[in-house]
């Protein structure tokens, strides 16, 4: 089966695209990454890591990275209103400084476009050190071609109340498809605290390939949210690569609410003792949407905790994947790790592949994992209807209840409400349609 599709994946080459005046080291990394991509080529379903996701539809289009349409759409509005402390807006990967605020009045916080941060020590020390461009083709492509993104650095001890919003808008048409290669670097110094929300919206056909590297220094507290709500014709491939040092505390939440073909990778290395990670995800799909969630949690050091929960809601002919791997290395004794994937199927034709995996290399750990796949509870549906609530609303309530476990954990009101609104609007948009089809 897969080989038929794979034959349609063309070979591709990328040329490194340096930014004017960038340091030699960055230039060299680009060249190495381009060489790696040219060796690896597009991933195919023959690779275990890409078993469930064929990139054939993506590779068939002739993506242009330099002919960019980057006007700000007239109706572009942040899903979180003006509640962020700082906001960077990018349209097809190009920063719009006039629509961005950099919160420069906050001492200890540096926010810049990444293209303007290449001389900084934090950049030199951390850039491209964590996201793997040796074996991961799409990260290699991004590393060779990236033009901009966000650079956020918190000085040791800096506490940021509120959140920083990185707002990415995509747009285009199949006739002239645009690819954006977005690159972010977030460095939270020792004992600092911050919340970052990346959100992805758009219209039409376009391709977003994004890589975010996050470094949580000793004792740092980092909340990272990715809110992916791309257009129904968009391609989105993203990697969030998190490096945790001693006693750091990271929360990573990934919301996937839209896109024709989406791959969200979240990879975390718990490298310092006593680090703690909470990784959550929610994907809500219908139509022919395809979302592949791919996570790796690597317990490198002793006494680290990780709790992972991904929930999927799939309707129509959607296809979802949860492929989560937890690795406990020989040195990582006293590891505490729990991994759960729960899925709700709303149609007979939706498909979910759930593959939770544990790889344990020492015997002094507490780990468990599991996954469930179920339908809406008919008893609950009847209960709600028996109190006068109509069937569509009752279904919506139950679906929302399933999702709310993740949404309700978002601490910042504006973000929780923004994500909740998006979720609600999606439900209202589709369930009545389903009823029409049934008649």
């Amino acid at each position, binding site marked *: 089966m897969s080989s038929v599709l794979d034959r349609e994946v063309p070979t591709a080459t990328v040329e490194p695209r340096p930014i004017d005046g960038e340091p030699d080291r960055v230039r060299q990394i680009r060249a190495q990454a381009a060489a790696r991509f040219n060796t690896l080529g597009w991933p195919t379903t023959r690779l275990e890591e890409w078993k469930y996701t064929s990139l054939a539809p993506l590779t068939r289009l002739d993506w242009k990275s330099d002919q960019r349409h980057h006007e700000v759409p007239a109706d572009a509005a942040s899903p979180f209103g003006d509640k962020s402390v700082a906001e960077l807006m990018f349209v097809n990967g190009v920063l719009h400084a006039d629509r961005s605020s950099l919160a420069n009045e906050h001492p200890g916080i540096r926010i810049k476009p990444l293209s303007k941060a290449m001389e900084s020590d934090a950049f030199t020390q951390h850039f491209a050190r964590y996201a793997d461009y040796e074996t991961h083709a799409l990260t290699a492509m991004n590393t060779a071609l990236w033009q901009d993104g966000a650079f956020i650095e918190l000085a040791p001890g800096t506490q940021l109340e509120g959140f920083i919003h990185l707002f990415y808008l995509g747009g285009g048409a199949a006739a002239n498809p645009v690819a954006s290669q977005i690159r972010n670097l977030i460095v939270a110094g020792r004992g600092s605290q911050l919340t970052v929300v990346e959100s992805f919206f758009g219209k039409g056909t376009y391709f977003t390939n994004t890589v975010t590297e996050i470094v949580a220094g000793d004792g740092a507290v980092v909340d990272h949210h990715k809110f992916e709500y791309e257009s129904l014709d968009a391609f989105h491939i993203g990697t969030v690569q998190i490096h945790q040092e001693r006693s750091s505390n990271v929360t990573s939440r990934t919301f996937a609410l839209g896109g024709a073909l989406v791959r969200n990778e979240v990879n975390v290395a718990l490298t310092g003792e006593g680090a703690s990670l909470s990784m959550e995800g929610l994907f809500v799909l219908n139509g022919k949407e395809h979302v592949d969630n791919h996570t790796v949690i690597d317990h490198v050091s002793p006494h680290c905790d990780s709790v992972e929960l991904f929930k999927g809601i799939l309707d129509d002919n959607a296809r979802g994947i949860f492929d989560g791997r937890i690795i406990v290395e020989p040195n990582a004794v006293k590891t505490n790790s729990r991994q759960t994937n729960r899925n709700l199927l709303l149609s007979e034709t939706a498909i979910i592949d759930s593959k939770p995996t544990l790889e344990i290399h020492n015997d002094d750990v507490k780990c468990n994992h599991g996954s469930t796949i179920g339908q809406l509870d*008919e008893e*609950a549906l009847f*209960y*709600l*209807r*028996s*109190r*006068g*609530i109509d069937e569509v609303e009752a279904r919506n309530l*139950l679906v929302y209840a399933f999702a709310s476990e993740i949404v309700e954990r978002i601490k910042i009101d504006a973000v929780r409400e923004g994500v909740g609104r998006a979720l609600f609007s999606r439900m209202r948009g589709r369930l009545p349609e389903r009823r029409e089809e049934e008649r």
Partner: protein
Amino acid sequence: MLDIKNLHAGIDRKEILKGLTLHVGVGEVHAIMGPNGSGKSTLANVLAGRPKYEVQSGTVTFEGKDLLALPTEERSREGVFLAMQYPVEIPGVNNIYFLKAALNAVKKHRGEEELDAMEFLQLAREKMKLVELDEAFMSRGVNEGFSGGEKKRNEIFQMAVLDPKLAILDETDSGLDIDALRIVAEGVNALRSEKHSVLVITHYQRLLRYLVPDFVHVLADGKIVKSGGKELAEELEQKGYEWIEEEMAASSGKEVAAAR
């Protein structure tokens, strides 16, 4: 108000109700008693429109409307309320949000003005006192983590808020301790009026001490086999259901004899 005529119904192709006929007038309280497996819960579920229950023949009219033709939610909006035997837990659906949505659906249907959040809370607080439920319950998921007694009290609380014309209590008394039983009965008594009717379905007579019915019916093998006043319940309590079964056997014996 409610007219059931020659109702044949069941589940999984098994006929459980075998020609049940019952008339409940406005303002009346009827009790249906019967042994396990006689069809009590089937009757409650058919009236509320629970999926998988099938009606083979017979009619149910509620205030002149064909009740069986209406979807579950519309039966509720017309004023039929079922207090369930086993209320389901729905984590993640907030109790107060759910009940406000339900009440406003009913109000909209009646052409009344919907309540805003403040008005609703005021009403809910008042009714909560009636069933002695703590306000903290309201911010939790529907029935989530409630004890058996709390679930039943929550049913009566919902009933009090929705103010139905016909309340059907499906073994609401089973598994309740004395306090909870009294609270449930008081909740139902508060609803009693010239305009409200109640159908109490129960296995035991003890609820009927607090909630005195106007009529008592005995259901056996899918039919009402005996009807009477409140004294019938006491008679049943003393003599047990065997008494009815014996009477039935005797009368069917007579029929057989007559046929010969």
